[in-house]
């Protein structure tokens, strides 16, 4: 019974669609019509996000923030990295941007240099055994170990 109804439904649809698309099976339209909507809509959704500025590019922000300090770090140095960012990718982004400097998360074990990224704290942080070497003014600070 169900099969008969299904067969009749298929043939009715086929007859109707054949009027407009005589050379192809009706099934083709199941794919082509959604594609003609979905792919352009996808394009315009990306374009809208870009034009309205609804996008964040964390790595580029880190590139900008850390550009000055990078120049002051010796290549392949091992430095401590402390940040008050709550972003889950903070450490990864910093590590990626600062290559070939190797970063160690947290102030211990202490190395000669320590980078602090301040995203929201009002007070100047203090790190035991370190003193401020340079404040870059954008929340990025470089500390050096006191010998």
């Amino acid at each position, binding site marked *: 019974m169900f099969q008969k109804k299904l067969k009749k439904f*298929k043939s009715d*649809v*086929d007859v109707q669609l*054949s009027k407009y698309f*005589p*050379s*192809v*099976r*009706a*099934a*083709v339209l*199941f*794919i*082509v019509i*959604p*594609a*003609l909507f*979905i*792919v*352009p809509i*996808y*394009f315009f959704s*990306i*374009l809208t*996000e*870009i034009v309205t500025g609804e*996008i964040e*590019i964390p*790595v*580029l922000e880190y590139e900008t923030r850390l550009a000055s300090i990078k120049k002051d770090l010796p*290549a*392949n140095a091992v430095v401590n990295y402390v940040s008050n960012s709550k972003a889950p*990718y903070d450490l*990864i*982004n910093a*590590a*990626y941007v600062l*290559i*070939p400097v*190797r970063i160690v998360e947290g102030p211990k074990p202490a190395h000669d240099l320590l980078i602090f990224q301040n995203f929201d704290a009002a007070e100047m942080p203090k790190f035991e055994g370190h003193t401020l070497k340079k404040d870059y003014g954008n929340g990025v600070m470089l500390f050096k170990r006191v010998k």
Partner: protein
Amino acid sequence: MELPAFIAPFLIGASIIIILFPEYRLRGVWLVLTISLGAGLGLGITSSTIFLWLAYMGPPGSYYFAAELGLAVILALFAFYRIHYSAYSPQEDSGLNCGAIPGTIAWLRNIFLFLMLISVGSFLLKTFFQDPHGIWDAVDTWNYRARWLFRGGPHWTYAFSLRAKDGLDYPLLITTSVFRMWQILGKDPIAIPILIAGIFTFGSFLILFSSLALLRSRNQGYLAAIFLFVSTQFFNIGTYQYADVPLAFFILSTVVLFSLKDRYPEVSSPLVFLAGLTVSCAAWTKNEGQLFLVLVISVYFIGQLGKKDWSKTLKEFIGFTLGLAPVLGTLFYFKFNFALENAHINVDSLKQFGTYLFDIERYIIVGTTWINKFLTFNDGIVWLMAGYFLFSGKDRSDLIKKRLLSHTTLLLLMMCSYFFIYIIYPGNPRDLLSTSLRRIIIQLWPTWVFLFFYYVKGPEKNVPIPANPPRSF
């Protein structure tokens, strides 16, 4: 500016294909297949050679690039000679001539081209303006390592350090491909990983189209590619610069090459050689590719032992192994000398495998999540497939059914293996499922689409589906 860095891999990959199949003379669909497959293979081969050079000789300089370009030119000259020679020598018809195919539905082709153009625009916008460095895994693993190889100087091995918990043993195809191009340019522009992501993303579309055009009809190829355009999640993962799309590219290429082998048995030797190359590239791209390698050998060779003449199977296996050896050798070298242990497979986790294997709750968690994910994947695109199948129906040719059996078995075994990896995962499987299941589906998605459109009836009405489609493209 960045494109010259891609010349050598492209020449190497495309020339190998042309040398193996000179009679096609770079026309029509074969040209599309040669370009897309050749680009991927070339990247796989050069990523392997540059890593070996780096490991043995240190950071590659002009000597390496001269050697690589020399190899590319020699192969290209040989390919040119083969094309030229084959053009003037009478050949037995292999069945793969390039004659024009009547019956192409022009509007279907135009829609395919239109959607391809829009997708290229979407890709450029998304990569250059939204996520130029890629997302998560790209920044944490693939491009991170490439930056270390490029900027690290004598400390390049830090790329494989213990900084990250995951990915200590991840293979290097993407990483060293990016590094190679940066090294040639002498700087590390973001356009390079984007270019590589684009090659594998659009290469997958083109391989899907061209393979079905060869095996079924051009219209079927257009329709399958249009369907893959609708799979925006596949496209998205491509723009994220993840390695899942390159892996999907090589899995699709391998299944396509074995399908062509079944269709054109007279050229089986070069096809299995190429399949060996693509499988080794899959293994060199991601660890899941190594599982794929084992299953390919099991299904296409060991599984065929009782069914076919064993001497023929052995001959094909030798050809496959020859294709496999160079890149797989590099992978072994990397695994034994640089890769640290896998974060999830160690003595402690092995002890718990038995416990997890009999934990019913894990089966329920993984099973329900899988079913839910498949039914809702890409906003329920499987329902679109179901609708097409309902109205179109299957190709009733026994030959096509027979040809599809081993490929379908291979993909089902891959899925079963993935399923059991979630079951024995040493940790909460929900965590792994939430971070990886979508990407696992993406790895096999283009191949499922290929098999689906290989199996169902074509778009043309009133055209009988031949048991053995016309031997031309």
